[in-house]
Every structure is written in structure tokens, then in C-alpha cells.
């Protein structure tokens, strides 16, 4: 009961970055429980799983089926459950990604095992798994203790940092269970530009009402571009005004993000917005109002006209990253 199953995610045949975080979280638990980590890869034949060993997987279990190229809720859930049952794991770790939030509850029912969702911390206490997670819009941190096995946890993206753990990652086959599908995924419509999702990006540059109009979001996009793989975020006000899509909204009724760097441009810092980004490692705020509440949570702030500051900042960031 000391081994841990890490359920990875792939899209279009490539492993998603969150998979490494899932393995890292599984490794953390397995080390405490004194067991090994098996990383489960579900997809069409040919998903490259090389990075998983380096991230800490002792074994890679590959469940391949043509119908698994994209998410198939019934098949994925049945496959995870079958793998979990056969391995006698003490814990099963998934990502609390969009797919994970749909998949994990199904697995919980199939295994008749409770599920802790959106987990930001993992520990053990006398052999029992303890999962820590934020509740009440991040105002309280809850530690949940499992009193049964396996413990099912879905970890928040961008929280468990993959570390070089250098395990073998030996590949083995496992059964792809394909029941009659009750739900079929018809297609995935890619967002324009195929940009990084705000909840998974390492750097988020967010814009608010201070930008005065949707056309000025070009400044935010440019600054995000300057950082390389940054995502664009938005406050609720600009999403409600129709300037930016809902998928970019950061905050209580949008997404909760935990990037290494969060840059808030022209955002005053209403409580609901802070709830969505206050766990970012570093917060930078740019606002013309020195009394804006955002400055209270920002590590670094610049007071002034964002229309002058942001282009200059983008320029300096590009120089710093190149040099």
C-alpha cells in the first residue's frame, strides 16, 4: 500500500507539462510512504513518455488505444480504475486540470475511494495521507486526512515543482479498458494562437480596466510575449465588458493561478481578484493610483502611467532575457 499511481495527461500525443507535476507530487508521497511511483499514460499509440522517469517515475504504464487519442471520459476512468485496482496503490494522483476535474470524480466512484481536489500540499501522518488545499476563496487552508486507501488526490497545476529525481521510468503495458462510451468528445476547438493557459503558465501578465479599452490589450500581449511563454490574464471587469474571453479571467469566479510571476497591469486589486492570484510566488503591480489595494499584495510595484511603463518594461525584459 506504499506505491503511488500518477495519472498523466497528454494532448495530441505529447505529454502536458502538468504531468511532470503530477509525478513530482506522487514521488513526494511515495517517498514518505516508502514505495514506488508508477506513471500511467493513456493515449493513442506513440505517446512519448521519456521525461517521466527523470521526473521521478519508477515505471511508466502505457494504456494505448486508438479511441484514447483525445479524452474519452468513460474509457479513461475505467482504465485508471483498472490500473489502480491491479497495483494495490496507497494513493492515486491526478492533475486538477480541466480533464482531471472531470476524470478524478469518476475514478473515485469506480474505486469507491474519497477524493481531495485542488490539492496544494501532500504529507503523511502515521501512514495516512494528508492533503492540504485552499477553501473559502483561499481564506482558509484545509488539511484533510484520508482514513481509507487508496487516497485519491487531484493536485493544483503549477504547485508541485518537478525536480530531477532520476528514476528508471521502465515502460510496461497496462490494460486499456474501453467500455461503451456514454459521453463522446466530438472535437477540441483550439483558442486563437494556441496560447498557454493562464492556470498553467509560469508567468501571467494580467490587464484590468486601467487599460481603458480592448484595443490596448495589445500592450499586455506584447509584455506577455516578452517573457516568452507567459499567459495573458484578465480581471473580471474587462471580461464582463467583453474585452477578453472568460478563459482568461483570474479571480474568484474565474481561474485561480499560482505562477512564478504575476504582473497586474491597471488592476486595482479587488478582493475577488486577489483570491485568484495571491498564491503567485512573485507579484508585480503597475497602477497609476498609489493607494490601489493591489499594492498591498504586490512584492514590487510601480506607480505611474501604464501606457508608458508597460512598453518600456517589455523592452527591458526582452533585453534581460537575451543578454
Amino acid at each position: 500500500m506504499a506505491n503511488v499511481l500518477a495519472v498523466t495527461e497528454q494532448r495530441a500525443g505529447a505529454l502536458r507539462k502538468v504531468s511532470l507535476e503530477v509525478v513530482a507530487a506522487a514521488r513526494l508521497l511515495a517517498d514518505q510512504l516508502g514505495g514506488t511511483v508508477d506513471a500511467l499514460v493513456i493515449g493513442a499509440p506513440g505517446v512519448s513518455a521519456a521525461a517521466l522517469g527523470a521526473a521521478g517515475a519508477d515505471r511508466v504504464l502505457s494504456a494505448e488505444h486508438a479511441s484514447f487519442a483525445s479524452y474519452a471520459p468513460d474509457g479513461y476512468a475505467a482504465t485508471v480504475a483498472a490500473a489502480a485496482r491491479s497495483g494495490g496503490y496507497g494513493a492515486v494522483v491526478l492533475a486538477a486540470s480541466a480533464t482531471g476535474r472531470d476524470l478524478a470524480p469518476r475514478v473515485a466512484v469506480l474505486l469507491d475511494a474519497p477524493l481531495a481536489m485542488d490539492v496544494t500540499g501532500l504529507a503523511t501522518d502515521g501512514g495516512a495521507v494528508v492533503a492540504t488545499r485552499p477553501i473559502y476563496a483561499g481564506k482558509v487552508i484545509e488539511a484533510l486526512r484520508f482514513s481509507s486507501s487508496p487516497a485519491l488526490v487531484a493536485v493544483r497545476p503549477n504547485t508541485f515543482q518537478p525536480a530531477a529525481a532520476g528514476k528508471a521510468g521502465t515502460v510496461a503495458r497496462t490494460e486499456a479498458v474501453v467500455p461503451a462510451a456514454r459521453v463522446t468528445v466530438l472535437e477540441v476547438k483550439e483558442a486563437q494562437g494556441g496560447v498557454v493557459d493562464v492556470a498553467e503558465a509560469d508567468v501571467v501578465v494580467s490587464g484590468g480596466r486601467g487599460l481603458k479599452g480592448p484595443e490596448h490589450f495589445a500592450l499586455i500581449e506584447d509584455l506577455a510575449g516578452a517573457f516568452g511563454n507567459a499567459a495573458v490574464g484578465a480581471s473580471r471587469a474587462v471580461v464582463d465588458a467583453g474585452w477578453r474571453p472568460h478563459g482568461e479571467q483570474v479571480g474568484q469566479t474565474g481561474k485561480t493561478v499560482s505562477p512564478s510571476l504575476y504582473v497586474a497591469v491597471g488592476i486595482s486589486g479587488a478582493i475577488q481578484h486577489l483570491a485568484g492570484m495571491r498564491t503567485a510566488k512573485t507579484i508585480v503591480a503597475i497602477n497609476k493610483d498609489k493607494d490601489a489595494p493591489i499594492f498591498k499584495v504586490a512584492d514590487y510595484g510601480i506607480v505611474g502611467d501604464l501606457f508608458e511603463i508597460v512598453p518600456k518594461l517589455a523592452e527591458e525584459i526582452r533585453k534581460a532575457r537575451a543578454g
Partner: protein
Amino acid sequence: MKIAVCVKRVPDTESRIRIGAGGAGIDEAGVKFILNPYDEYAVEEALQRREKAGAGEVIVVALGPDAAQETIRVALAMGADRGVLLKADAIPPDGLAVAKALAAELRDGGYDLVLFGKLAVDDYNHQVGVMVAELLGLPCISSVAKLAIEGGAVTAEREIEGGIEVSACALPAVLTCDKSLNTPRYPALKGIMAAKKKPIEVKPAQLGAVRLQVAALTPPAERKEGRIVGEGVAAVPELVRLLRTEAKVL
């Protein structure tokens, strides 16, 4: 169309939330309780579907303490027909235990559609709706932001990272609702008066075994005090320097 909507009574997260004495729950004094905002989309969707079908019934089901009857009445005031309260003085943090109680209630209802909000804003568990579907053996699409139902066929869109996932299933089905699915109506004043006369059946909740317990509740870590680096364009080089040397994010 016979539609069930599962709703939850939650604290308004704009209230000051304080950990209660004993550290096992929050201090409810002075906390305002509301209908879970994501459940509003579910109630609205149910009402619109019933209106589109021309006939039908919308039943609101809640699991919670006695005071949750007030929450059910908000949904009745919006236009739902009747309510069921599965009474439980404390809602366990184990979503599966809750799902089992709801599934037991819904199983023999003959519902065409069972709707949930995608998550509750107190616990953010994001699981009960999908679990109920799985327990009932019904198809489920979660976090639905756009929905079409034609004949008995459901087509739904949900947000995923970097795009939209389009899924299909057949009725009867369970759906969990996301923001932007619709615009929930305000409970009209006449509706509030009418809600008083609509029936709410109260019965004990048949919770499953609770195998997840709260070990501790703590406040979030305080952020270190930050600082204003400077004013205007002139402060930019210093900011970049700090991001590189101090914060080490570049």
C-alpha cells in the same frame, strides 16, 4: 421535462471568514449564507429547459442543515416547483459520501436531466455532480458553458486549457454548470411570495461512509511585505534588476 437541480447553501465568500474555536469549521456568527452562485446557473438552465419544453417539473434538492430550506426557497422563488431537503447537520468534506446520499434520492425520480453547479464556492470540491452521475450510471458532462439539447441528444461545450472541448451524450444525463451558461434571473418579488406555498419535503440524508476528515484549518501564509519600487518609466530598470537578482524569475 422532469429536471432535478442540486443546490448548496454556502457562505457568501465576500463575508469575513474566520476559523471557529476548535479549528474544525468556520465561525458562522455574522456570516451571510447564499445559494451557491454556480447553482444559480443550474437553476436558471432548468427553468429555461422547462419553459422551452412547454411543460415539466423542476425539483430542487439540497443536502444540508435545516436552514438550507431557505436556500431551496430562493430556487423556488426563481420558479422551481418543489424542493427536497436531505437533512444533515454537518456536511462532511468527503464528496463521495455526499454524492451517495444525493444519488439515493435521485435514483428513482425518472429525471430527464439532473443539473449541478460545477463547484461550491465554500469547499471548491468540484466533484459531487460527476460522482452522482457515475453512481447513477448516467452520462455526465461537467463544467458546461454552452448547451444544446435537440430531441434527446445533448451537445455541450466546456473550457479546457487553450480551447473548448465539445462533447455529446444522450438524455437522461447529468450536467454540471459553469458561468456564462446563461444569465440567472433574480427571484421576482411575486416569486418570493409564491415560494412560501411550494412544498419542501424534509428527510434525513443517507450519507455514505465518511472517509475524509478535516485534520486542521489554518489561515493562509502571510505574504512578505512588498514595496513600491518607484514611479513612472524611470523605475523600470530597477524593477527588472530586482526580478532578476532578488525574485529570480528572469
